[in-house]
């Protein structure tokens, strides 16, 4: 590699390399959520806490379950998932399927894929933590397109009434659905104001600024209440020809396109 790669570059590269033999990869969402995941796993990445200790405390619910490969790729990048296991993604008998599945050993709290389930699940898990008096926090990552699901608004009404949950919600607000811009199809904005109007604490951050996302997460943890982080991101972030291009939501990449992606991520294209 010609440049020193960041953890998120490594993870994106893992996505690209896994995609070579996988039947289903959602590049756009995997790339937009990567810095959010890096912020979530920040303490592990910096070796402040052992992974086992980390997942005993915090549980991840990736409500936009089609981006599970981003989680697996990041975990492979920090040595939690082996490259052989990652390579089994979407393969017959493989460890990982195209949508993320519950995996206690990886701190993944629930199987998702059908959109609009994760927030209610997260509230239920956080409610259980509260009931049991257990330490820890549930972190739920939503997609902006997923916010069209009515069930999310049922859950937000619940939080509007009672926000004393050890819960951080992060919206990967990458501005795109599968076929076009969220704002053109069913506008979600101004989401920050909508969430605040529900009476739920909300902060808006640059979702590709790992430090900013981490700081917001710490703020939620310290408050003892639920926090909604509106993380503005760019769909397809990190590759020049996938950024902001809706077709890369779930497009099957050609070998030439995969090579271009690799070249950009490794710096070989420079």
């Amino acid at each position: 590699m010609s440049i020193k790669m960041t953890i998120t570059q490594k993870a994106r590269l893992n996505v690209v390399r896994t995609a070579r033999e996988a039947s289903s990869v959602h590049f756009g969402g995997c790339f937009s959520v990567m810095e959010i995941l890096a912020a979530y796993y920040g303490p592990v990445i910096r070796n402040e806490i052992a992974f086992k200790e980390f997942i005993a405390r915090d549980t991840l619910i990736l409500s936009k379950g089609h981006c599970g490969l981003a989680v697996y790729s990041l975990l492979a990048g920090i040595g939690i998932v082996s490259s052989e296991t990652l390579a089994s993604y979407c393969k017959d008998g493989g460890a990982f399927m195209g949508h993320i599945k519950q995996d206690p050993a990886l701190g993944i709290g629930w199987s998702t894929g059908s959109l609009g389930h994760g927030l209610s699940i997260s509230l239920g898990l956080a409610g259980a933590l509260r009931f049991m008096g257990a330490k820890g926090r549930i972190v739920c990552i939503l997609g902006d397109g997923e916010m069209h699901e009515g069930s999310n608004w049922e859950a937000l009404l619940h939080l509007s009434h009672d926000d004393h949950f050890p819960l951080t919600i992060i919206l990967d607000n990458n501005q795109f659905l599968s076929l076009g811009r969220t704002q053109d199809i069913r506008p979600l904005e101004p989401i920050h104001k909508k969430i605040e109007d529900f009476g739920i604490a909300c902060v808006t951050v640059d979702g590709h600024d790992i430090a900013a996302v981490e700081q917001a997460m710490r703020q939620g943890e310290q408050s003892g209440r639920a926090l909604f982080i509106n993380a503005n991101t760019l769909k397809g972030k990190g590759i020049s020809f996938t950024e902001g291009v809706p077709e890369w939501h779930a497009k099957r990449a050609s070998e030439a396109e995969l090579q271009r992606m690799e070249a950009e991520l490794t710096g070989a294209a420079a």
Partner: protein
Amino acid sequence: MRKALGVALAPYFGQQDYHHLFCGDIGFGVFDDVRRQTPGQFHNFGISEQHMVSYAAAFASAVKATSMVYTINPFITSRVHDQLRVDVAYANAPLVICSVGAGFAYDALGFTHYGIEDLALMTVLPNFRIFTPAEPADVTAIIRQLFSDRAIAAPCYLRLQKGGERNLSADFPDVERKGSYKYWPGDEVEIVTHGAIAEEALKARQMLKGDISVAVRAVIDWGRYCEDEVMPIQDNSLFLEEHRAVGSLANALVNAGKALPRASAPLRLKCVRHTDFHGLALRPTALRLNGLDAASIAHSIKELKAEKRPDIKLEMAG
């Protein structure tokens, strides 16, 4: 049955704080004991069934203890089917999905509130166990079974009628409520049924008294009945169900390989056939329209008794 549910749950909730009840803003008066004695374990989720089911599934799974979700039949079965499928069935959550309003129980409220397709939706889901009490005493026995231990091994569907049902088995103190039980002996025809329509079966039995000897069997635990109790269906069995044919107990038996339609053992099912409920039909009328009232049942039994057609393969009596 609703009252029996509230009374049966209260002691278990009083003894253990890990059992919780999630309710879709119904049950006025039903859960008074639970609400008064253990208010922290009663959660009214308002009208948000999708959120309620996912929340309860996650909560019960994390606490590792049986909890219950309760609301009107179609709203806890068809409206939330994806949540039931993903978050309860495949997650194998220790959750009891309890519906009220089986069949035409909410007759005056119209077809939006009928519970005549719920079993089709619930029996198609993996892992679920199905419970169909015919009377309040069944509810008590089922709750005892589901809440005696900290957590059930698999999700359950408990299908209640509504309120005001009689304990039909009051004359039979020795009834053993396992998979199924017989109300009355009879050696010529056996009506196999579930839910509150058992009362119509008993009325039909009375109508035929002295003419045809009819037994009535109520099935309350489908898994136990299908796996442990049922014998290959006999020529003299008549299934009576306040539900459509798809998802019926008769269907479940066929799927379990216990009722292969064959010449020597035709399967006879009386169930809901009607498809147009835009005109208001109160329960007695709705049952009559579908041939599920006592007089129609008695008529079918007479036909069954007179019938000498061994070539019938699968007859779904209308």
